């Protein structure tokens, strides 16, 4: 479901993605788990959107480079670049609206 990214391939993956969502997460973070499961549900109705995840404890510099501050942060990828980001919790409806207006 998710493609795991690292500092080594994150930027290349973004540059290679037309439509996608990247979550910056850390282990043992309940809100991160919540958002990952929300994205899984969201992707059921949006199969054309690629899902990526980045462990911010293993790749803190990449997370900062993307503009992230705290987990979970959702990055919307459109036309090969990050166009929006949002930290915190969202439900699938809020995610849909966030993606559409990004």
């Amino acid at each position, binding site marked *: 479901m998710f493609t795991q990214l690292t500092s080594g391939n994150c930027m290349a993956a973004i540059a290679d993605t037309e439509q996608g969502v990247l979550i910056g997460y*850390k282990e*043992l*973070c*309940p*809100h*991160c*788990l*919540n958002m990952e*499961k*929300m994205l899984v*549900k969201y992707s059921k109705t949006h199969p054309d959107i690629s899902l990526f995840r980045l462990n911010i404890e293993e790749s803190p510099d990449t997370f900062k480079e993307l503009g992230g*501050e*705290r*987990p*979970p942060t959702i990055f919307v990828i459109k036309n090969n670049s990050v166009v929006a980001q949002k*930290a915190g919790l969202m*439900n*699938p409806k809020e995610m849909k609206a966030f993606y559409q207006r990004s």
Partner: protein
Amino acid sequence: MTAAIYAAQANINTILLEESTTGGLVNSTNLVLNFPSKKAVNGMSLMAEVREQVDALNVPVEEICEIEHLDLTGGVKIIETDEAVYEVRAVILATGRKPIELDPPMDCDQIHYCSICDGGVYEGKRVVVVGGGNSAFDESIYLLNIGIRHITMLEIMDDFIAAKTSQDNLFSTGKAVGKTGVKLAGIHQEDGRLKFVVVEHCKTGEKEQIDADGIFVFIGQKPSSRLFANHVNLDPQGYILADADMKTSVKGVFSAGDINQKTFRQITTAMSDGTIAALSAERYLRI
């Protein structure tokens, strides 16, 4: 999840519907110390183990599930989610509790309710913790352990109600101070960043500023019972009134865990309730 395990073991066709992710508030607990068989365990890890057991029993779990309609009145209960409509003969309500938020709400990105989730960003910074119970002190110790530079504890009552050992553990670090008889009266932000909080002394009305980069709020929990308010009997605080067999006021509807009116709310007592609720439901279905 305990109720689902017992129900599945009793060969009851069971489905688990969860608004968020399985595990509830335990997921936000850094360290669980009183769980038999585990000397010390991270809450989320513990819940992951329980979930593995649920999955091993092939109980379907629908997470991030929005309940859109409930009809619990008849012999067949109808539960409509955003994905499906379920017609079942018995329901176990185990929706637990949620953190109480600041009242009045304050619009600030640096107000948090989960130290595990949001504490890391404040490494080397100063934070204010609102609350004076065990959760507030345990979470504050966790915050210091991950590198928060200084904590100011704010408690509206005249004394902290946390266990003395927890208070001693925190204040003996020399990195935390406590203020009682005070309330958070305001916040000041610059460019979307918290700069300081305004604290009001309840007796005198005197106000003071405390520099802070973030605020963590641990002022208790409230029952997640809004969905059932018109279906089963609740107490004035919103907790479900269930008997010793976890039966609610509606036939075929049982409830378990922190959502019930009770004195002690622990992981073990919630699991006990879940056990009883599932066994009661099994008996109800069999008779």
